[in-house]
């Protein structure tokens, strides 16, 4: 069937079977492989995307459910210069990325939280990423990165993000525990 929707801000029309997941549609029909498949049963959050602004597991959404709606994947999150945005840069700077497999979902979970509030406490941040499993970092650095981004955006730094995609010296100081 024909599925028409807005993907990362652009209208798109794609012919695909009705019985596949949105995850499968994104990865195998649209070649957007940034969205990862982890468990495939809604437990791990690696496939998280925003559907009409709400964080969902794309492995549990049928592709045609996207019809007429707005989908944002990790490919739609970037800085004005095309490099990492402030949240992504903070993930790099704070050592929040190790193997990287959970990160697209983590970034979207972080963006979904920051769209709701720029004053989350650490407990709220942990709850916001509770549906996203990371087996490398122990989450501490991820929480740090989201917390700092919230503070930066509160100060308005996020609006005029001038950071270079090249990691800042700060990232070398981060110790991995």
């Amino acid at each position, binding site marked *: 069937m024909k599925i028409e929707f807005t993907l990362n801000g652009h209208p798109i029309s794609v012919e695909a079977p009705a019985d596949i997941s949105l995850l499968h549609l994104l990865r195998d029909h649209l070649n957007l492989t940034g969205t990862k498949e982890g468990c495939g049963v809604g437990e791990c959050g690696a496939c998280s995307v925003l559907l009409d602004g709400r964080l969902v597991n794309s492995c549990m959404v049928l592709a045609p459910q996207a019809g007429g709606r707005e989908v944002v994947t990790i490919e739609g999150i970037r800085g004005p210069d095309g490099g990492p945005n402030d949240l992504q840069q903070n993930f790099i700077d704070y050592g929040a990325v190790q193997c990287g497999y959970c990160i697209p979902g983590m970034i979207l979970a972080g963006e979904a939280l920051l769209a709701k509030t720029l004053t989350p406490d650490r407990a709220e941040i942990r709850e916001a990423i509770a*549906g996203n499993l990371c087996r490398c970092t122990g989450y501490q650095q991820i929480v740090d990165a989201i917390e700092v981004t919230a503070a930066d955006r509160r100060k308005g730094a996020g609006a005029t993000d001038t950071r270079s995609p090249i990691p800042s010296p700060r990232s070398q100081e981060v110790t991995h525990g």
Partner: protein
Amino acid sequence: MERFSYVRAESIPHAVTLLNAPGVRSRVLAGGTDLVLLAREQRNLCDRVVDITLVPELHEIRRVTNGAGDHVQIGAGATFSEIVASALVRETAPLLSDACHSVGATQIRNMGTLGGNVANAAACADSLPALVCLDAVAHVVTPTEELAWPVADFVTRPNRTQLPPGGLLTALSYLVPARGSRGVFLKLGRRNAMAISRLTVAALGRLDGQGRIAEVRIAPGSATPHIHRFSQTEAHMLGQAPSVALCQEAGQAAVAEMLEVTGKRWSSEFKEPALQAMVARALMSVFNLADEEQLA
């Protein structure tokens, strides 16, 4: 080849028409968190999926006042996130807000719906004990009639309900508990997020002018195959002044009531002390008593 086709319902009557199209085996897609996985396992699940996620009426949460009193009606398509965010539910039935908040994590709460939880009726469904504790009613529309059952009768056993073929669960409603009532929802899982409930307890109670228990409702989840109020345990408490000892007795009575239904099972050794402690704690919270064991 597509194993099933997809169609989106625009309204409740449209959904009912689609579900009753002759010669087409249809399944309702309410949130997808159960159905999409089931469809992957069972290759021949249905001919067509009827997506009701975008039917506006099914998301409404509103107060309904009629001859029978002041009710809150929640559209069956309301997601757990929508219910958690509802000030009306928080104000009238915080135990239901808490039960919905305990489901999965953000992603699952953004997708999963109250109606889906009830209609799928998993043994561990977190909203069921809360709804049963509230004496909630399930509202169903078929092509010819509108039906209603208490949730405790609607869900007969795990994964089985009274939903007639071609019927659509449209709403869940509850009578707003009397002034002075206090309710709690407790969940025992392996971790905070994403945990499948091992045991839950929804409880609600109220004192009379003399400080005696005028009303108490106790509905454990994942304890018995059919989720129901533990009426013997409730009867044991009625008319008495609440105390820590009474709440602990109620915990023991609840265990006895569970075993009457289930008999001893492989999990009883774990469930007996857990249910006893959870019922006692839930009731102590309902009646504002300090849990000395927890303080010690």
